[in-house]
């Protein structure tokens, strides 16, 4: 078939595909090429300073092998999973409670409260630590003043409770994601199920555990995967609030990659850590797509 005939025959498909070209070009320039570069750098001893900036060498898997023997890398991995699990539980529970509140018939003012619930999620993440710094100050912070008011011991939020502090900030900022997914799932449950349950005299807990939870099983799993995926490469709070301290106790993998690449200028090693994070996120994305039936 000649080219002209081919073009004529598939003209509508070609026109449709051409609308994708700008987005594909952007994806190529800002996603694919940097990703390939990062993977390539992870196999070199590239640095941002010194001779290795102009003469980097290909070192194969050395960065990855060094990572296996790097105690701080494993500490970061452990800290990251602890952070993700703790945030996951808190974000999910807060999100579920907020979703139940918003979908309940009992309470009023839900529109305004829905907007208030969403506020932390839409405020830029870089602002959150500044809000919380004044709350968590050991001597003058609001939280310790509240604890003192109730006769409890003030805490060293910046040092001894550094991990708890960042988990708290992250959960406060991010519970709205679960709230949005779950409230939309709960709203789609047919009302008739609850009406029948009312006829049979079911309690609120029975309605929740026998009707609501089973029917929102997949949105629950989806929101758990999404929250975990969001938290695994978290960076802002630990960078601005604790800088990974004390003693690497809040050194998340993403922050460790940043420190290696931009504080110690070991770009190759930092990229290798970044690749590990990308693999974890990729696996979670596959799980998310499977759950979504894609």
């Amino acid at each position, binding site marked *: 078939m000649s080219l002209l005939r081919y073009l004529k025959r598939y003209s509508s498909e070609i026109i449709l595909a051409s609308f994708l070209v700008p987005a594909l070009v952007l994806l190529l320039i800002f996603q694919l090429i940097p990703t390939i570069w990062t993977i390539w750098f992870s196999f070199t001893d590239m640095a941002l*300073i010194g001779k290795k900036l102009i003469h980097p060498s290909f070192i194969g898997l050395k960065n990855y092998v060094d990572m296996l023997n790097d105690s701080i890398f494993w500490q970061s991995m452990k800290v990251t999973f602890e952070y993700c699990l703790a945030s996951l539980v808190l974000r999910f529970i807060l999100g579920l409670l907020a979703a139940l509140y918003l979908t309940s018939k009992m309470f009023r003012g839900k529109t305004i409260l829905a907007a208030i619930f969403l506020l932390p999620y839409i405020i830029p993440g870089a602002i959150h630590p500044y809000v919380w710094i004044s709350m968590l100050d050991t001597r003058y912070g609001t939280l310790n003043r509240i604890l003192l008011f109730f006769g409890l011991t003030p805490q060293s939020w910046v040092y001894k409770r550094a991990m708890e502090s960042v988990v708290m900030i992250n959960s406060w900022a991010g519970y709205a994601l679960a709230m949005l997914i779950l409230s939309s799932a709960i709203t789609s449950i047919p009302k008739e199920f609850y009406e029948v349950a009312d006829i049979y005299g079911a309690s609120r807990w029975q309605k929740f555990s026998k009707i609501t939870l089973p029917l929102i099983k997949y949105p629950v799993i989806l929101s758990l995967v999404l929250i975990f995926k969001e938290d695994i490469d978290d960076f802002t709070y630990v960078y601005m609030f604790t800088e990974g301290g004390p003693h690497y106790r809040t050194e998340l993998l993403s922050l460790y990659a940043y420190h290696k690449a931009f504080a*110690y200028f070991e770009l190759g090693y930092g990229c290798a850590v970044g690749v590990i994070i990308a693999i974890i996120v990729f696996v979670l994305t596959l799980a998310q797509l499977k759950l979504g039936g894609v």
Partner: protein
Amino acid sequence: MSLTAREKVLLACLIIVIIVLGGVAYYFATFKPKPEVIELTLYTKAGLWADFIRKTGVLESFEDRMYREKGLIVRVKIITAPHKGYRERVVTDFAAGAAGDVVWLGESEIPGLVEAGMLLDLTPYVEKWEDWGKFYEVGKKLGSYKGKVYAIPFETAPLVIYYRKDIFKQAGLPVPWQPATWDDVVRAALTIKEKVPDVIPFRGFYDVCLPIYMAGGKIYDTTDGKWIVKSDAILSAFKVYYDVFYSYGITPKEAELEKWDNRKLFQEGKLAILIDGVWCYIEKWGPGMTYEIENREDVVGYAYIPGLGTPGAPNYISVTGTYNWVINAKTKYPELAWELVKELSKPEIIAQWGYETSHIVTRSDAVLGEYAKEPFLKWATTVLEHSIPKPIASGYKKYVNTFKRVIIDYLVAEGKSPEECLSIFVNEAIKELGSDAVKEV
């Protein structure tokens, strides 16, 4: 003779064509090509730093001078990066080729950028520059690497002891005060701890390695290019920290672990003795500044930092770094960039910056104007006589960060003994720097 309509139209067109052609001929006859505008970029910190340059008019005077002397139209554009994270940003921009022609740079990045071929060798330029002889040696050393000059020092800022005169008087301590040894500092702090108990007696050291220098030690050996990770001086330094936090308890551990704001505490009169940089006097506590202290001259005293008083320890000591102007090796206009650096490094500009931010001038002929009249700055310039430059070598940040981590995470947080801390430091430093880059003395 009357013209027909057609003839009138033809005549009008002819007149229009003649006018247009005449205009075009006039334009090309008088046309002169626009002169080429050379753009230079100046890369510096945002806020105070960039604002100072704009305020002084130094760029305009440079542009005028280039036009008068060389017939060149030069425009200098300022590129800024935030103060927080400036070091990381400037190095990344150099690597990406996005740094300016003339760059504001701290001394610790000079070795790495030189090795990467990013900085222009200024040795041929300074050799012909009569002003170079007026720069202090400590600044020249900090801007040099392997015998060549790569940076022109603009400011330097040694460390000093500050003390609150009002708290000293309350505790019955003499004012003015100049401790002869470290023991004098400890004695004063203990007196304050007893007599003025709601005040923190002492906070140090700003440069975490200062106690090593106070013991007469060093952290880097220039003869073999190795970092010293075990020595009597380093052990003495750990002992100083242990005494401060545990033996004498003149600094609460929380102040270090929770990073209390020392300058704010000093301003509020809740901290009696502080070792910090000379810039605090004006930049932090000066009129209109963040932590302004009223009647600062009556409230804030200052003194040289004494040595430990042990054999080999200096009488007085300080450590200093510099911020410098460097030229990007990839600049298209190295001669013009050098002219810009010379303009920025004029004594009156350095003196004005020193006065406004209480940094010390880097050249002897810059002790003039308001800078020369300010008693603190005149005194602080003499601190340079006792100051040693920070080591200019790759690995400095790793060494200092490792030392700091051991102090905070093991000594302060866990109360480990100085000997245990020394052993931990040796192991950690070897991991960070490599066993062939370190040595013990």
